[in-house]
């Protein structure tokens, strides 16, 4: 189930195992049969830690989703709520508890498991509703960093960016620091910490403080990570706004990947056998898990989409040839050997079929005129062309009432690539957006302004060209098929965040001091002392391992770029990636939008 977690340089299975054990311990505290009531948002992340079988072994007999009203009938001794500490969820729980039939026998015991942290505020809330006393166990499950893949960890905290940069609420940073402490407990103290940005500074401070306050935490594990790099998302607001052009990035842009799963339109995934049930085509979306456990996916996920087609057709030829082998198998031994390979070939065949279908779905979109026009404008902005005037394409999209998020992505991209828009240009866009999409969006525009995504050019100076040139963010000679630079992930644009990581490894940040000063927040370096016995003596040619932690979210294209750097022959550094949330431009902007009621249509 979790073999893919141990495939990387750092074996993340240990982290998953720790999480599973924690869960078992909690379940065993509530003796007897149980039903779990789930905050639906949590089922995805929990699925990466445990399957139903684990719960069942610990007497979980029923599972429900949390919703107001009376709890379903179930003859169990315990009802356990698995929830995030959110006030609106507390209201639902209160409703559930109050409607419980007091006369029923035997009575059911209530418990709450807060994920990732108990909240005094929530408990206070429950107390005011008069139900706090109904809960026997109120505990927390510190699911801070969830292993997504052999080199990827996420906190899946949807609102982290909004909380950090809009509301200046640092709770998610506290959780990030806690998660890093857990990692260090499992994988050794990380000797070097680098960082850029306000939030990065906070997290580093918290880690150092936590270590000082609990000197017992000095462990004797040989450090796996050499370096930790903490990066604020607001140091690089540009990258998530651009359309990702890697295979995995495009799947996410178009269909949205949730906790490694994607839901796809079923039409292209015909029923397995022709002639059988051909009439009732599936109407439910096809759900697939995407991770490196699938050999083919691991190979193509990080390629530029333009390079995916040729790999797929090559694979198809290889598999066809392999199946052809059966005609040549004459002796019993040969037939036996062919048969023994069948399961593997079948898996490869079905994997190839799926990805060919997905590639077709994506290609329909990437070859559309609108995708092309949109990308043209993005690339113009990123390479610094016409960023200071009202853009025709954006105006046209507004006139045709394209989805608001698309408009906001483009306008924000233009603003970021121009170090803010001229007041006149900004006012023009604002007016058009409000008139076309509704005045209430003034609240959203305000949030974007506060987050620095959309702003008037105050200094009168546009720093972006200097940053672009110094960090080589725009590469003219990009090779999509056989890339030699990270800019292939956006077909020309090299993600700023990853460029910072790359330059840190070689030749070091001292070479870009000037540009670092132009980017928001402090940059810093800290060292954590190791006992002499644990200091690393590097073997010749052995790669360093760097953990890059994106505070406020990371895109799949950025992950692809870091993986590309890991695989470079003379790179010298391998990367493991951690983040508060896996994002794309759409989900990110959405998290900053004011929740408005749905239109009556």
């Amino acid at each position, binding site marked *: 189930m979790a073999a893919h977690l141990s495939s990387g340089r750092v074996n993340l299975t*240990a982290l998953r195992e*720790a999480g599973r054990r924690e869960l078992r311990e909690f379940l065993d505290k509530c003796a007897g049969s149980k039903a779990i009531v789930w905050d639906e948002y949590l089922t995805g992340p929990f699925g990466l830690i445990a399957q139903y079988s684990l719960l069942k072994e610990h007497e979980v007999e029923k599972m429900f989703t949390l919703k107001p009203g009376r709890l379903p009938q179930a003859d169990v001794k315990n009802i356990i709520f698995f929830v995030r500490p959110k006030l609106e969820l507390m209201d639902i729980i209160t409703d559930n508890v109050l409607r419980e039939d007091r006369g029923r026998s035997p009575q059911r015991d209530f418990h709450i498991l807060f994920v990732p942290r108990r909240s005094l*505020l929530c408990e206070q809330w429950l107390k005011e509703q008069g139900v706090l006393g109904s809960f026997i166990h109120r505990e927390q499950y510190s699911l801070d960093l969830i292993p997504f893949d052999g080199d990827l960890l996420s906190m899946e905290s949807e609102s982290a960016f909004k909380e950090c940069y809009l509301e200046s609420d*640092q709770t998610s940073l506290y959780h990030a620091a806690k998660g890093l402490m857990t990692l260090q407990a499992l994988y050794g103290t990380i000797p070097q910490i680098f960082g850029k940005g306000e939030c990065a500074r906070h997290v580093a401070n918290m880690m150092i403080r936590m270590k000082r306050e609990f000197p017992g*935490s000095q462990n004797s594990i040989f450090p796996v990570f050499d370096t930790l790099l903490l990066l604020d998302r607001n140091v690089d607001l540009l990258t998530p706004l651009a359309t990702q052009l890697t295979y995995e990035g495009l799947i996410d842009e178009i269909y949205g990947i949730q906790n490694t799963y994607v839901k796809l339109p079923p039409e292209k995934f015909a029923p397995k056998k022709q002639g059988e049930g051909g009439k009732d085509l599936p109407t439910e979306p096809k759900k697939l898990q995407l991770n490196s456990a699938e050999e083919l996916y691991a190979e193509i996920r990080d390629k530029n989409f333009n390079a995916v087609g040729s790999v797929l057709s090559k694979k198809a030829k290889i598999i066809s040839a392999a199946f052809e082998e059966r005609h040549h198998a004459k002796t019993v031994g040969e037939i036996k050997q062919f048969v023994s390979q069948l399961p593997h070939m079948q898996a490869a065949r079905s994997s190839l*079929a799926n990805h060919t279908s997905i590639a077709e779905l994506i290609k329909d979109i990437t070859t559309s005129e609108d995708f092309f026009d949109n990308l043209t404008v993005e690339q113009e902005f990123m390479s610094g062309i016409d960023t200071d005037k009202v853009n025709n394409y954006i105006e046209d999209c507004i006139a045709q009432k394209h989805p608001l998020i698309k408009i906001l992505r483009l306008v924000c991209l233009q603003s970021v690539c121009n170090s803010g828009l001229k007041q006149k240009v900004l006012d023009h866009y604002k007016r058009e957006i409000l*008139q076309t999409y509704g005045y209430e969006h003034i609240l959203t525009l305000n949030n974007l302004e506060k987050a620095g995504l959309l702003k008037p050019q105050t200094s009168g100076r546009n720093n972006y060209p200097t940053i672009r040139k110094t960090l080589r963010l725009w590469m003219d000679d990009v090779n999509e098929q056989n890339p030699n630079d990270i800019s292939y992930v956006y077909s020309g644009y090299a993600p700023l965040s990853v460029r910072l990581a790359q330059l840190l490894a070689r030749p070091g940040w001292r070479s870009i001091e000037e540009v670092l000063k132009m980017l928001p927040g402090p940059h810093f370096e800290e060292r954590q002392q190791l006992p002499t016995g644990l200091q690393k003596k590097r073997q010749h040619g052995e790669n360093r391992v760097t953990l890059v932690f994106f505070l406020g979210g990371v895109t799949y294209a950025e992950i692809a770029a870091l993986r590309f750097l890991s695989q470079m022959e003379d790179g010298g550094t391998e990367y493991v990636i951690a983040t508060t949330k896996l994002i794309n431009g759409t989900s990110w902007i959405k998290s900053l939008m004011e929740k408005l009621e749905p239109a009556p249509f």
Partner: protein
Amino acid sequence: MSRARADEEEYWHSSKFRAFTFDDEDDELSQLKESKRAVNSLRDIVDDDDDDLERVSWSGEPVGSISWSIKETASSSTSSLEGRDSGLQKGSSSYAAFPKQVSSYSLSSLFKGELCLSLSALSDTGVKNYAPELRRPKAEYKDYSSDWSPKDTVRRMQRGKVCSLERFRSLQDKLVLLDEAVAGHDGNVITAVLIFLKRTLRREILFRELEVRQVALCHLIHFLKEAGEQKLLLDLLRFLDRTEEVALSQYREHLNIQDVEKRREFLKGCIGLPFSAEDTSHIQDHYTLLERQIIIEANDRHLETAGQSEVFRKYPRKASILNMPLVTTLFYSCFYHYTEAEGTFSSPTNLKKTFKIPDKQYVLTALAARAKLRAWDDVDALFTTKNWLGYTKKKAPIGFHRVVEILQRNNAPVQVLQEYVRLVEDVETRLNLATKYKCHDVVIETYKDLKDRIQLTAYKCKVERGSAEEEKINSILNNMQIRWKN
């Protein structure tokens, strides 16, 4: 897009920009198709039932995953779980690969006694857990009543242990406690302390002290928003002189008002709030728009039920116009009230004037609305201008290629379409559009103007045999007066 297609081609070829397309499109596509074929043909020789992969239901959820199980167990809460065991076996057998004691790591065992991140530390007390019940007097906490310092208190709270805060009586003590909490960065604890301070301090003092403690301040503002304590929030923001935030926060409230009359009244009250200059005009417009919509809605509902207006009979309204954006309202008014005099609230020209809608926006919207009604005369009038000599001239602020697109989307007949294709200034674009929408006359005339005999001859096979168009081509080709360029 005003840049003509031809320019665009040129642009892509000559510039350093890379268009995002497959290099060799046909080849690439056929490769994909080919691999799909190959893959599909293999199905016949493979028995899928023996799939060695993880078993998945059609929706793709692995059987035995949590979300799958929620559906399963919830849908049959009465039947015993044993009945489905066969279905779950795959899941459990894969689990069996992980013996229970495979690892001795657990988050709590790692930290037990040290970091105290541990959950289980909570149960060490041997009794059931208490949440810090802030209001309870200290005496009730006999087990915990030792005098913790502010620092220890915060640390204990971070570990989820019970602490009475009532002991901190003096302002000085409370502020030290708050500063400790802030230094710990745990939002949960900071908020708990803030709730305690909010309850035990006078408002002015609380506000004054928070003003110099920005982190704590942000947490309180966030909390007040979450908890819906709007009044205290506004008081606080006013105290801090964050007037624009006060205004926006108050304006946000209108979203919670369902009744349109009440919403309108509320928006009226918002106009005077201290927004930025730019925002003030938007808020004013928002109010004016809703006011208009209420009037229009009442009128039109009446018209519709009376059944005497033809347009309402033919095209019944799909939804009410209330709370729709301005441009939608303009479209509505161009659709149902196009001919009304400027004096009425529902007339398009009145809307245009009141809200200073730019020409471009107005023409686009009016065009879309009239085209949908197939009112081609109105469309014509929209682009006709008269100069002082009385000559008429066609002009479109949005470019005629856009006009053509919109008309085409509304299924305009070729005769209408043709008229506007002819007006597209850029020759290349005109030819493209004319060819695409089969406006033969325009194509023929354009080739004639270009003196391009080869293209014109080639076009002959695109028109019907024996048609007037074919005849026209023939007569042009036979015209000896034309000096062809090829």
